[in-house]
């Protein structure tokens, strides 16, 4: 047993022992308080933050409604597109990442940066900001291989609009493109990179086509990796839409105008439904979907043939002799006896001015029908002199001219029905007698659009009802008015149109077994006076810009089916010659064996 003693000076330091005890208490109290503060006092707040960390709500794209023609053939579809997005919250170095995107895609880095800063406030930090809306497949492989090293980069699969027929229906459908800043600000449900309709039906029917976005809750880890997702609300696809357009007819009509500028409308007169709607030249709407380059845009905008102009509803031309169908109606309604004849000697004098008939040596004595069939100018000069501008204008307005038809397309022009007040305002000159005469043969100040003409012709053959032109297959006819024309007088005009095909200027449309009617028009580009000197130049001898616009308005009826077809060829020359073969080809399609 060792000695048991406690040597002096081996006692532990008293103050030191006190210090140790005190430290234990300090440790316990401080951290208890802090833990209480974090877990109890602010616990609920941190719990919310933990959930925010982990759960993200994301919008789910709703597929845009498909567009088909009247027979169900697809014209506008959705295709998968790969977009490159950037989640700011997950991105460590935004500037370097943008540079990298620029390197991969070849997009200018300043352009990317500008886009990034412009849209920063519109995209939530944890949502992918679409910087490259459509990335080609080769580039996608490069990005995908490297995405791991660039946190925050995300490849987003979206649907992209694709117009199967490219330029064929561009003026009907319009196109979609990325929503711009204004649209994004106005509509909170839109996200950067979403497509919205920018023109045509895509714009007008935007709300029906767009659908409703879905909402999904995604559980993510700190690197943004998706672990689990729950769909909170299914996306609702946009409504599918069937056009009244007949795709085959549209293609046939479009081919007829190839290389020329002009418009063709084919309409069902009984309903106002449009079967063909052609404005040539056209453009490939797909270009807009993924974004035009500056160069592509300038080329389109500055093209001398104006492919962006929708000639069916936006081109306003003098109607030429087509207008005799209107003035004739006004004349008959004014009580003028159609049997009464007028002598045409090739010209008429009003004061000191001479107004010529297109037939130099005149038509001799003509009654109403002969005047319309042969398009006798002198007969209608007399009508204009009798009716004056007031009656003609009122009647033209009653027939739907000088106002938009209300077709469901943006930027329709209203044309022009002149009045003395208008002329004074526009030119500072009073209306003179000669203006009445020019107006009566469709020259002068009158301006019409092809769709207006088609609607008027439809009203003539359907019993006098002015229907709103319709582009959708399931649309209900909308009566907009009735022609200010008695059935008797209307029939008189229609019969004269039939006779015009039988023996007049529209003979090219003659077709066995079909009741055809028509009226040609030649709208002079160079003012009449100037023409008097070299009046008899042929179309080929004139430069393109000076050539007349060719009009042909027609209808065809067989087995209870009636169609109205209107064609306008810009600088095409004489109506019957230029537009005749075009409409003949259209009736070939409409009355072909297979179609019956």
């Amino acid at each position, binding site marked *: 047993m*060792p*000695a*048991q*003693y*406690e*040597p002096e*000076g*081996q*006692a*532990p*330091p008293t*103050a*030191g*022992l006190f*210090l*140790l*005890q005190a*430290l*234990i208490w300090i*440790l*316990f109290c*401080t*951290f*208890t308080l*802090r*833990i*209480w503060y*974090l*877990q*109890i006092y*602010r*616990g*609920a*707040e*941190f*719990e919310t*933050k*933990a*959930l925010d*960390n*982990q759960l993200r709500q994301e919008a789910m794209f709703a597929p845009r409604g498909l567009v088909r023609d009247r027979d169900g053939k697809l014209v506008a579809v959705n295709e998968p597109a790969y977009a490159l997005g950037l989640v700011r*919250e997950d991105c*460590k170095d935004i500037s370097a990442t943008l540079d990298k995107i620029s390197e991969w895609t070849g997009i200018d880095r300043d352009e990317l940066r500008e886009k990034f800063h412009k849209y920063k406030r519109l995209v939530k930090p944890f949502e992918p900001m679409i910087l490259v809306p459509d990335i080609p497949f080769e580039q996608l492989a490069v990005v995908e291989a490297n995405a791991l090293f660039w946190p925050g980069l995300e490849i987003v699969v979206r649907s992209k609009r694709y117009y199967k027929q490219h330029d064929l229906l561009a003026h009907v459908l319009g196109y979609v493109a990325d929503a711009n800043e204004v649209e994004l600000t106005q509509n909170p449900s839109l996200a950067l990179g979403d497509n919205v309709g920018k023109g045509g039906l895509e714009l007008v029917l935007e709300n029906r086509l767009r659908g409703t976005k879905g909402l999904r809750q995604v*559980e*993510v*880890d*700190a*690197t943004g990796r*998706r*672990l*689990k997702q729950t769909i909170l609300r299914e996306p609702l696809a946009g409504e599918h839409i069937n056009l009244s357009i007949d795709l085959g007819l549209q293609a046939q009509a479009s081919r007829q105008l190839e290389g020329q500028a002009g418009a063709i409308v084919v309409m069902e007169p009984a309903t106002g439904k449009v079967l063909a709607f052609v404005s040539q030249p056209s453009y490939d709407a797909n270009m807009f979907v993924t974004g035009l380059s500056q160069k592509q845009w300038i080329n389109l905008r500055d093209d001398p043939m104006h492919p962006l102009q929708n000639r069916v509803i936006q081109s306003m031309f003098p109607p030429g002799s087509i207008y005799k169908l209107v003035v004739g109606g006004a004349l008959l309604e004014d009580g003028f006896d159609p049997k009464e004849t007028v002598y045409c000697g090739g010209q008429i004098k009003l004061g000191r001015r001479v107004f010529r008939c297109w037939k130099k040596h005149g038509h001799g004595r003509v009654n109403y029908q002969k005047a319309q069939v042969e398009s006798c100018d002198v007969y209608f000069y007399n009508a204009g002199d009798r009716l004056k501008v007031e009656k003609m204008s009122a009647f033209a307005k009653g027939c739907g001219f000088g106002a938009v038809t209300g077709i469901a397309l943006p930027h329709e022009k209203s044309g022009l029905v002149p009045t003395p007040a208008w002329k004074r305002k526009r030119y500072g000159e009073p209306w003179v007698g000669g203006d009445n005469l020019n107006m009566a043969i469709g020259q002068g100040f009158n301006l019409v659009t092809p769709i207006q003409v088609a609607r008027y012709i439809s009203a003539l053959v359907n019993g006098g009802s002015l229907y709103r032109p319709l582009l959708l297959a399931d649309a209900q006819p909308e009566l907009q008015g009735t022609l200010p024309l008695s059935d008797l007088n209307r029939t008189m005009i229609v019969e004269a149109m039939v006779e015009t095909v039988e023996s007049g200027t529209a003979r090219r449309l003659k077709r066995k077994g079909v009741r055809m009617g028509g009226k040609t028009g030649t709208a002079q580009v160079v003012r009449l006076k100037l023409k008097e000197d070299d009046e008899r130049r042929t179309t080929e001898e004139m430069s393109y810009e000076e050539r007349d616009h060719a009009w042909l308005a027609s209808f065809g009826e067989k087995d209870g089916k009636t169609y109205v077809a209107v064609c306008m060829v810009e600088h095409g020359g004489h109506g019957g010659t230029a537009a005749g073969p075009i409409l003949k080809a259209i009736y070939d399609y409409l009355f072909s064996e297979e179609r019956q």
Partner: protein
Amino acid sequence: MSFIDRRVLQHINWALLGLTLVLFGLGVLNLYSASGFRMESGVAVNTFFQKQLAWGLIGMGGMLVCIFLDYRHLTTLAWPLFGLTVALLVCVPLFGKTIYGARRWLDLGFFNFQPSEVAKISMLLLGAKLLSKGQRPLDWGMLFGVMFLGLIPAGLIILQPDLGSGLSVLMLLGGMIMYRGLQKRVLKPLFITLPLLLPLSWFFLHDYQKQRILTFLNPGSDPLGSGYHILQSQIAIGSGRMWGKGFLAGTQSQLRFLPEKHTDFAIAVFGEEWGFVGCIILLSLFCLFLYQIFLTAQEAKDRFGSFLAAGVFFYFFWLVLINMGMVLGLMPVVGIPLPFISYGGSAMVVNLCLIGVVMNVSMRRFVFKRS
């Protein structure tokens, strides 16, 4: 085991051993959760907890050795061990292995060895040996002498760079100095000058260390950068609320929002999954654990034993204070692990050896006393 008095075994400090084992068990359990992370399907688990278990067993071997060798022999080991430590620390910059940009490890072939861990033990022994001599509080001469000795290994470790370990060596020594006490004429000037000198240390800090301090003062300034640790660990702990989210159910940690979750921030995982109740229990366990070490220091037979226990006390006290302070957002981010809870092999071995030393002192407290 003839050199062991049977009576000594009867006085084994079961409370301290029990607390140590409970803390170790909780640490392994928590690591099991902390090393899991949710994948697209199911939970993948890293092998940290298995390694920790293995290191624990090695450490217990070391602890047994430390228990049964009479601690009074350690005084003779103090100087040689200190010399060896300094030699190893000098070797680190010459032959050391660089991991994460810091040269801290010596490659011993089968495992990587951190001489800074040995430095803690040798500092403890040398400090206890020197400071247990004499009764009076320290005067200037003694203070500078001891501090000078401490600064040699600490400086070498800080240069590696490993600020955390270097500071813990210094703080262990500092704790023992405070335990011994300072003369009033030393204490007073120190009280005045130390707070003035502290800002000067700013100029010796690395940029990333300055950044951590700045971010601590304003974590919101850089929520995705260095403030991320602070915010995320507070979110993890805070969202545990009263009862916690349950074992393996912590979303912050399983979804990897929480960085360093198996090492320095392991207690955040614990807090998230076990809540306020669990945290207070863990904190209480640590305090009882420290209290047992305190009792050992109080009841030690001689001053050397008392100082050994006090040194171990401070060693653990600082680690708990700094690590929990950091995770709870009360202190800047410093890479200091929480004993038994954070993953770390050599730290685990050292921790258990130190407990062994304390138990050694504890069970020999009656040897020379009359019963």
